[in-house]
């Protein structure tokens, strides 16, 4: 746990970067500090490992005032990842990753084992061990940066715009991998970004700051998007706040309608009856194993044989239970029929989504 109690930072010359900040970063959570430039987010981050010292108030890591621990001691227990990465150009990848264990005086076997483990954990090919940083791509370098920060297994990590320097595709991949890694290692993380979308994606909680280091709101992404505390927060979240919120809610949150379902062997009469009870002019064909085969229009059924006698139509749009409501909404907007089929694992039919069903969440 990291706690800020009435923390203030004034720089020489009188600018106030942080003003009476109260904030708690719970164990194992990612707290994102976000705000426009000049909002003091990097200053706050750097006060955790004493790269910057507070002018007033108290910063504590696991109950221990950071000002009472010597900076080298304190910092070796706190991982640090920055936008510029700052790998040591004169050391190999393995030596870079081994930095803190080496400072801590681990023996060589233990260091080697840890380096091997980390290179694999962050998804680097084994061949990079003995290369120098400039021989790696930007994305690979940032992975080394993360591995180096994790090396001595610090309980706390500080990340200052760690993925801002790579291109959008690599950034998305690094973000996803980092979230997967975090779900295993459960570090207590302070993460700085100026990008609200990254904040929503990465944060268990988000602290929105305004110029001069004023905390405007501190909440989970969902709370923030549902109920911004003031105009500043609402503005910062942007015009598509509602859509951003939908992106956080999984489709499984909304009950799907059963829909007009018939078995492949059903006849025209049964199909008509089922369609009528759902007041539709089409039916979904689902086999014994629960797999959706496709759908058929009543007026295309030729009277006698079973429904799978005709060529079934493919679904225009399907959504998966894990998809977000934003994806589902997009499907409904594109769909000519205003209906999207929800599928589970192995194409199992789970029901239909309609605009009416989503309206509860969309209100």
């Amino acid at each position, binding site marked *: 746990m990291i706690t800020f109690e009435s923390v203030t930072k004034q720089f020489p010359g009188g600018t106030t970067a942080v003003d009476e900040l109260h904030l708690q970063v719970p164990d194992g959570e990612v707290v994102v500090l976000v705000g426009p430039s000049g909002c003091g987010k990097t200053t706050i981050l750097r006060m955790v490992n004493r*790269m910057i010292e507070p002018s007033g108030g108290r910063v504590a890591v696991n109950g221990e005032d950071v000002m009472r621990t010597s*900076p080298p001691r304190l910092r070796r227990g706190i991982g640090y990842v920055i936008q510029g990465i700052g790998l040591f150009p004169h050391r190999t990848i393995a030596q870079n990753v081994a930095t803190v264990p080496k*400072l801590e005086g681990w023996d060589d076997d233990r260091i080697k084992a840890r380096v091997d483990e980390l290179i694999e954990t962050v998804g680097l090919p084994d061949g990079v061990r003995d290369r120098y940083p400039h021989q790696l791509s930007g994305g690979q370098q940032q992975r080394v940066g993360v591995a180096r920060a994790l090396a001595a297994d610090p309980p706390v990590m500080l990340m200052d715009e760690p993925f801002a320097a790579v291109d959008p595709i690599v950034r998305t991949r690094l973000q996803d991998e980092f979230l997967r890694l975090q779900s295993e290692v459960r570090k207590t993380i302070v993460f700085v970004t100026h990008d609200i979308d990254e904040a929503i994606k990465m944060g268990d909680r988000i602290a929105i700051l305004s110029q001069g280091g004023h905390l405007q709101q501190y909440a989970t992404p969902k709370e923030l998007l549902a109920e911004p505390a003031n105009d500043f927060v609402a503005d910062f979240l942007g015009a598509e706040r509602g859509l951003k919120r939908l992106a956080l809610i999984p489709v499984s949150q909304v009950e799907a309608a059963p829909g007009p379902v018939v078995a492949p062997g059903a006849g025209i009469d049964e199909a008509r009856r089922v369609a009528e009870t759902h007041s539709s002019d089409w039916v979904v064909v689902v086999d014994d194993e629960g797999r959706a085969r496709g759908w058929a229009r009543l007026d295309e059924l030729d009277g006698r044989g079973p429904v799978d006698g005709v060529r079934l139509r493919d679904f225009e749009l399907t959504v998966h239970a894990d998809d977000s409501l934003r994806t589902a909404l997009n499907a409904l907007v594109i769909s000519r029929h205003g209906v999207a089929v929800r599928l589970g694992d192995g194409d199992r039919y789970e029901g239909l989504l309609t605009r009416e069903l989503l309206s509860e969440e969309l209100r």
Partner: protein
Amino acid sequence: MDWAWVGENLGRIRGYALQHLFLTAVPVAAGFVLAFPMSLAAIRWRRLYAPLLGFTGMLFTIPSIALFVLLIPVTGLGPLTAIVPLTIYTLLILIRNTVEGLDGVDPDVREAAEAMGYTRGRRLLGVELPLALPVIVAGLRIATVTTVGLVTITALIGAGGLGRLIVDGFTLFFPTSVVVGVVLSVAFAVAADLVLLAGQKALTPWRAGRA
């Protein structure tokens, strides 16, 4: 060219060459020993840097022959009279390159080192010096080549070196001696430069293949 003379005087020529080596190596080494702590001080206390450069720059502009002559009453005719001014002349270049080299270390690298929990001393030795090495060695190379040239003048105050061959050649109207002195002096400067460059390459393997 009187090759017979060269053959007869090999021993004397070797003696002057060794003096030349000595009169180059000692001032450069002494200059570095003085310049290094001054550079660290200039980095620690920024305000020192400009006056330090100004002062060593001013010393650099004093004509060498004048400085040698001025020192004769103090240190007499001998190697010390040569070594002191030659050392002083290296300071400007060595201080400037050491400070620029350390300043040139990528701020992100410095920040990362600090945040990893390096102490100030270990950061200097383990991160900043190795990265500043190419610029520092570049300073040593310029200082060395300059000093090799200046040492030829020390013959005038009786300190020896390859300059003796040049001075003697002039006074005796004997061109062979002048040519041998000049050629050896130039060859020595080039060789010293290459040795330092090779040393730097060996110490900075991570730069291999980079422009």
